[in-house]
């Protein structure tokens, strides 16, 4: 059984057809990427998969559950987490608190436990803090847990978003342009980190990425969207040979050599 199976996803905004009949299938433990020119519908697909947008038609199955039409928090509870293209941290909360919010749906608390400050609640909170600190160590923010999220430099904010998403204990992690704004060195470090993540957390990754060097070196499977339609899918090698893909990326002759970054 696939971890995620989306069939015939369609989403339009007024007259604009953002997604039409898009299918997507992800296997447990793989790293998949979605590529495509700007406005191809990649982020809309993410929004539909995570419940921020409701698809007009089509069905989505995640780990055996039908999730199309569920609320975002319900889908998160089932094990789908994401980061955002334009970073959306809780700016005026501390770094650690950002991660703790991610754990919300994994903390079994009751309001009267909170009000009574029961032993069990305090214990649960302490465990949550420890886990949050461990996650921050993992992404290299261990020494910044008390800073406000908005005071972090850009690269740290990206990493905090990943830590926050991991805190929800996901089976599937959707990363929307994780290397945006990074130099090649930083992007390489992030790739290594993502590979380790897949092994350590047994998480499946789905990336939207413009950096072709990243996409081609890390992905097991690549899906190409253009104008809301899936125009190709396959292994990175297959995609690099595909004439329709080259056509979609008009004028990118040095395709596959990292030259398409201008799209970012």
């Amino acid at each position, binding site marked *: 059984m696939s971890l995620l199976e989306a069939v015939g996803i369609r989403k339009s905004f007024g007259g604009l057809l953002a997604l039409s009949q898009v299918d997507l299938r992800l296997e447990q433990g793989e790293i998949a990427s979605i590529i495509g020119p700007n406005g191809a519908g990649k982020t809309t697909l993410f929004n539909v998969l995570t419940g921020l947008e409701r698809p007009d038609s089509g069905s989505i199955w995640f780990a055996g559950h039908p999730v199309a039409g569920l609320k975002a*928090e319900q889908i998160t509870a089932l094990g789908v987490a994401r980061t955002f293209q334009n970073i959306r941290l809780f700016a005026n*909360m*501390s770094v650690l*608190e950002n991660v703790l*919010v991610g754990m*919300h749906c994994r903390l079994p608390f009751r309001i009267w436990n*909170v009000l009574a400050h029961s032993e069990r*609640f*305090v214990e649960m909170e302490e465990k949550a803090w420890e886990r949050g600190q461990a996650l921050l160590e993992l992404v290299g923010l261990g020494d910044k847990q008390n800073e406000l999220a908005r005071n972090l430099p850009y690269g740290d904010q990206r990493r905090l978003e990943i830590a*926050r998403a991991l805190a929800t204990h996901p089976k599937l992690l959707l990363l929307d342009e994780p290397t945006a704004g990074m130099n090649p060195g930083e992007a390489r470090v992030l790739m290594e980190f993502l590979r380790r993540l897949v092994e350590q957390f047994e998480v499946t990754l789905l990336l939207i990425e413009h950096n072709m060097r990243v996409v081609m070196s890390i992905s097991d499977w690549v899906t190409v969207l253009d104008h809301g339609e899936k125009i190709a899918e396959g292994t990175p090698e297959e995609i690099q040979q595909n004439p329709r893909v080259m056509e979609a990326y008009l004028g990118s002759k040095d395709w596959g050599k990292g030259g398409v970054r201008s799209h970012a």
Partner: protein
Amino acid sequence: MNALKYLGLALFYVGGTSLLVIVFPHSLPAFLAFQSSLLLLYYLPLSPRLRVSLAFVVLAFLMPLIGSINGYYLEIAIQVGIFVALALGLNIVVGMAGLLDLGYVAFFAVGAYLWAIFGSSQANEFIPSSWIQFPLAPSWFFVFLLLGVVAGACTGFILGLPVLRLRGDYLAIVTLGFGEVIRVLANNLDKPINLTNGPKGITPIQRPPLFFQPLLEDLGFSISTPALYSLYFYFLVLLVVTAVITATRRLDHSPIGRAWEAIREDELAAASMGVPLIRMKLLAFATGASFAGIVGVIFSAKQYFINPESFTFMESIGVLAMVILGGMGSIPGAILGATIVTVLNLEVLKGLSLWLNTLRNSGLVLSLPFVGDYALSQLPAQLEPAKYERLVFGIIIVIMVIFRPQGIWPARRRLGKVGRT
């Protein structure tokens, strides 16, 4: 050694100012200095236990003592307490969860009318007296304190339901309308069934039972009944405010508080991180409203008489101003904001008006340059600060928003270890 020095300073200040008030029971600066001793206690680097015990001494012993010398001070303290509880409740909705609520006083009205109707003969109008005779016995007051919490929470929940999808300006307008609806209902529900007695209001409202009066007399204390009621309400409010502060702090330091703040920061991101938006927003509305409900019950019992005039839009704005002044989302900020506004209102502006009056009656004649002689008895009544209280607050808020938008006492981020509440 340093700790001892600070303790000495605290004791000296608290002791000195309370002596001052006792010696000069009608001196306003003395009372202000006494009140600020609590602020000093908060700021001095004392151990938490010491700080709490000193604050307890000030609030539970010195304040009632001073209040028994000058009863008006106790009245101020009660009012401050009521507004602190209201500000803390609104702070949860507006400050923490970021849901702008302009009709907050409605929940206060619900609590107040709840006890006013059943704690007076008003309920006889629509409940046959063959069933129960109203007013209910004074001891029912304590049951109604709890019912006030429940009624407030339910009203908050009901208001919350339809406005869940609204944000920002739209939410503000709907809550504003809701606040007015409650007031207009109170104003007009005297027919066809007389529920609220309309604009005439409800009186007399039953007061809580003085079950300890015989005991006090046996002990040899003879306190007049009005003074006893003042003390009674003071301790009641003190107890409720303590409970409200504890509840707010515990919620704030929990997944619930973090979820509220996440919703305030970025609703979409919060939902994506698994925060159940609807449940958390409803909880914020219900919690904030329940605080208003319980102090509403106390308010109606204390006032003895209520009518819809006590629950106007300006009251909602007043509480909101306290929250903004203190610092949105900050617990000490809300407490400080409520205290400053109430003290300014009841003490400073009124005190200045009184002073102006004494000037006018003094019969003094000033000889000013250019103007010539000016008899102080001609000072216009419009000069009285109590008359332009709103203007003063307007100016304060404008200055705050320009120069210190985060409030006097902004929320500090939670640092360090858990479980320190």
